């Protein structure tokens, strides 16, 4: 299958081809790949794609998973409306 059509991060449309291009250009830090590609930065917070991207980086660079600088998960666990936070439940 064409690497252009394989999506690693579905929220931000980050493909396998784009990952390989970044790695080939010398950007091998996953933290940097996240920030350049937006992969893991969508509404799912990377819960779907983070490990997938990390595994592929390790695989492509022939490294151990423990050598990959995996980004942290940020809060919140799931998206919340600002109005619910600002006004409490009664305004939700």
């Amino acid at each position, binding site marked *: 299958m064409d690497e252009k059509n394989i999506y690693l991060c579905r929220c931000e449309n980050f493909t396998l081809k784009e990952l390989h291009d970044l790695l080939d250009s010398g950007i091998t830090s996953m933290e940097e790949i996240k*920030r350049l590609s937006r992969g893991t930065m969508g509404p799912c917070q990377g819960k779907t794609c983070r490990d997938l991207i990390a595994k592929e980086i390790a695989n492509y660079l022939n490294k151990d998973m423990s050598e990959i600088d995996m980004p942290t998960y940020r809060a919140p666990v799931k998206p919340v*409306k600002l109005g619910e936070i600002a006004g409490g439940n009664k305004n939700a």
Partner: protein
Amino acid sequence: MRKKADVVVIGGGSIGCSVAYNLAKKGFKNIVLLERKYLSSGSTGRCGAGIRQMWGTEMNCLISRGSAEIFKTLGEETGFGDVEFRQSGYLLTTYDPSQTERLRKNLAVQHKLGINSHMITPKEAKEIVPYVNTEGMDAAFFCQEDGHINPFKVTFAFAKGAQDLGVEISRYNSVTDIKYKDRKITSIVTEEGEILTDAVVNAAGAWCKEIGKMIGLSHPVEPERHQILITEPLEDMMGPLVMSFAHDSYIQQVPHGGFIMGYGNPDEPKKINFNHDWSFLEQMAKKAVFQLPVLKDVRFVRQWAGHYEISPDGQPILGSVPEMDNYFMALGCGKGFMLSPMIGKLIAEKMAGEATSLPIDSLSIERFAKGELIVETGVV
């Protein structure tokens, strides 16, 4: 990593990468840039991504104006590509006459330097940003040439430009010590070994004090935590960044579609603190829903924290220091990202012994000892 360098730049944020790029462009050879984590990890990649020229001191205005010009061509010049520069404007809002008066005085400074900013009425503000709530608003200030740029892309554009000119970038490599004799630094000790060097640039931002201590200097700069959140992406509906001087906050919709918003609490203890907290979220949500009621139904998807490095007068600290001959400071002090293109250029000119494009001697660290402070009052 190289064992010998002509210049070592400490810090892989937008300023460090800009300094390295500008030095290489100026003809400096054998430059090594050291970054303790990954590029943009310190403050640049955590910032609000705004570009602003409406400042209150001449130097802040001039450096930001020059930087905005460089941002226009940076992506093309470095071969990086689009860096998402949008001159979509800044709308500063005030809610009492004393704030208005303070910003009105700043307008005089801006107009003298050719910055196209205006004081407008709340009604006019609503014409520019239809979703803004004008309840209680006293006045607003607008500059169309302010706006947004992607901090990650800017940093990587500078880094690419630098690397293409032969700069070595060493990531995940902390500086652990600095060796010096009399007035001269001789080498930088890192986790990966020692580098002999002829000159050093401190672009360590919120960590600059730690670097200063290694050569026996006390830099009067403290890290202040600022927190941010971003929402889910929506269709483009906002235009300018909205910065309220009553809420001490900023809110902008970035080209990706999300609304990024944040503020800092100046009363917190000054230290590095990457934790985000619930109280920020609650306060920020209240500030946002008050200023832009339409945001109440928008979901926030991520929050994080970063730091401003705060100088006593809110202006950058640039150039040499009285105690050392081959040590240079390149600190933006709370707005380093948006000033990074000009800071890199000015430091490279200074280190090359040329006349600098702007008179940066007034921003030397010596001003604090001499008491020659010109305080910037417009930092949010």
